[in-house]
């Protein structure tokens, strides 16, 4: 009994310390994220004239779009206190295959679009359901991802599924005002997601459940429903990414997105969303995705190898998460 009291005090003291740090410095994480972007721009501007141009900025945002769409959707999961999903790449691949199949069968773009997204939504909701029942999100999505990959491979006999027509080209290759659809989708979805998170009851519930599950339950919020919704949204983002890519390249394969999952998580983390939930920002996730793409772009222009680029990305993620963790705790 006595130990329990001690335990509770320790937990309370830590929580109080963290709350104080947070209240004292709501600007710390945004400042770090902003500084990192400025630093990248500065280094790029000094060393590589070609880096800071409007054309190159568009190239960077375009290459960040697919990861950005998924990362923004994934941020809902992280803020809800469910860490992240390891099945995003597989969901995107499955969606790309399903979309290609429906186009090839002549179902038409509108039907293929809606059905693919519904399929992705369902996959996410089912994973959310398992998590809501008390399972560990990381292990659940690891298993679900393998099952989805396997299912897609068994259904297609691991062969490439081609759309076989150009009816969906406008979706994947359209460039209204000279900017690709994917980039428009990334920008619009970031804004919508930010509004949903900050201005709607759902967004506030999501953050409350993530920051203090016990209090959220006590006030009558349903944690399970929130978890299901969060995973459904993340999966929807992956489905959208798969569909865009399938429409762009005219095919879907089981290993179309080998690095999507890890890159999307990296973008969320570089954007400074708290891994234990409750606090995060869609805009920062989007900046995180663009930052990683920008860093990669700068290194490509400078002629660095793939190995160097991936290593630097890993170091950037490590530096970012370490800094955020320390800054969130310090009160001074």
């Amino acid at each position, binding site marked *: 009994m006595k*130990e329990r009291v001690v335990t509770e005090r320790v937990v309370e003291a830590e929580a109080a310390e963290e709350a104080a740090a947070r209240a004292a410095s709501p600007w710390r994480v945004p400042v770090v994220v902003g500084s990192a972007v400025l630093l990248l721009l500065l280094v790029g501007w000094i060393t590589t004239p070609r880096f800071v141009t409007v054309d190159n900025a568009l190239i960077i945002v375009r290459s960040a779009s697919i990861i950005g769409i998924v990362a923004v959707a994934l941020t809902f999961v992280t803020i809800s206190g469910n860490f992240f999903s390891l099945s995003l790449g597989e969901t995107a691949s499955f969606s790309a295959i399903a979309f290609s199949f429906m186009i090839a069968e002549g179902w038409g773009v509108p039907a293929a679009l809606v059905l693919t997204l519904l399929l992705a939504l369902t996959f996410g909701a089912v994973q959310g359901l398992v998590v809501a029942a008390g399972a560990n999100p990381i292990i659940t999505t690891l298993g679900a991802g393998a099952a989805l990959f396997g299912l897609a491979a068994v259904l297609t006999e691991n062969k490439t599924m081609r759309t076989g027509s150009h009816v969906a080209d406008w979706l994947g290759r359209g460039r209204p005002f000279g900017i690709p659809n994917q980039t428009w989708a990334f920008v619009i979805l970031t804004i919508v997601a930010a509004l949903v998170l900050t201005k709607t009851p759902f967004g506030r519930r999501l953050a409350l459940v993530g920051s203090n599950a016990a209090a959220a339950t006590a006030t009558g919020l349903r944690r399970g429903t929130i978890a299901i919704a969060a995973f459904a949204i993340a999966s929807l983002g992956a489905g959208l990414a798969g569909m865009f890519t399938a429409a762009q390249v005219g095919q879907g394969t089981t290993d179309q997105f080998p690095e999507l999952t890890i890159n999307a998580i990296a973008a969320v983390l570089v954007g400074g969303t708290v891994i234990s939930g409750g606090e995060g920002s869609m805009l920062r996730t989007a900046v995180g995705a663009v930052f990683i793409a920008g860093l990669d772009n700068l290194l490509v222009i400078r002629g660095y190898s793939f190995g160097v680029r991936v290593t630097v990305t890993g170091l950037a993620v490590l530096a970012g998460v370490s800094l955020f963790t320390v800054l969130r705790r310090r009160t001074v």
Partner: protein
Amino acid sequence: MIPRLRIGRVMASRLVLAVGVFAYFALSDDRFFTTNNVFTIFEGFAQLGLAALAIGLTIIAGELDLSIGSAAAVGGILAVTWAGFGLVPAVLLVTLVGAGFGAIQGYAIHRLRIASIVFTLGTLIGLRGLAFLISNEDTVVVPDLDIARVVKHQLWIFSPFSLVTIAVLIATAVFLRYSRWGREIFAIGGGRTEAVAAGVPLGRPLVLTFMLSGAMAGLTGALTSLKSGSAAPGGFADLLLPAATAALIGGVAITGGSGSVLGIAVGSLTLRFVISGLSLRAEPYYALTFVTGMLLLFVIALELLVDRPEARQRFGMWRARLGRGGSRASPA
């Protein structure tokens, strides 16, 4: 002691499962229970057992090391590069490097009080980059194929590889069971706040856990690569799935604090029985991935359904613990 009873019950059920799976395949296919096929099963077990032990130890400690796949890739490339020093020195050196890296990783996680899933995601990316960097982005090959022949030399149903794995498993089991440092790993996984309140130093078991997982990952990569005579920088990317599946089949509780090396070994064997049985039926690799994913989901469901309210409660504690970095989540 309720935990011990629980381990007993879980362990018994997992042994029954292993025997059942073995009996099913042995009775349905006469090629299954032959010296050569049992040798093949143990060859698969040799690799999987070490990886499952790496991830299993971190789960027991209430953490998760996502970087084992990338660490194994680096280990494989280093081992093949250093094969000229001789087989034993190369393997020992790689294991030491893995242990050193893991110790640093554990120390960083401890000092920064950062969630291990976040930190190891950074090292997952960084080490993958390093693998490409040190291999010049190409498959490396051993100078002398005799080394490969030694590693996989068949001795009845064993090989030097599987004998090393069995020796490592036994040594780890003895260490965890009979040493204070080993029991501390269970203590911080079962109830971290209580363990710390009772005087367990948090740093030592954390550093030790990640040191062991790093060493095991390096050793798996080294022996697997030397056995095949080559190492690819993109290798071992899917190590996490079978490793986590084997550990959980073996009764390691995802909520931490509970599990055993014997269980991990039994879980690894069970998974290899299934994969061997399906391979004999000439099922393609993606069907095996599908089955592994479904098995993982099955084990998750089993854990949820067997003790549902308890599992839900523990998940909350796991979250609170992982959120040391910045969580306000309460431990209930």
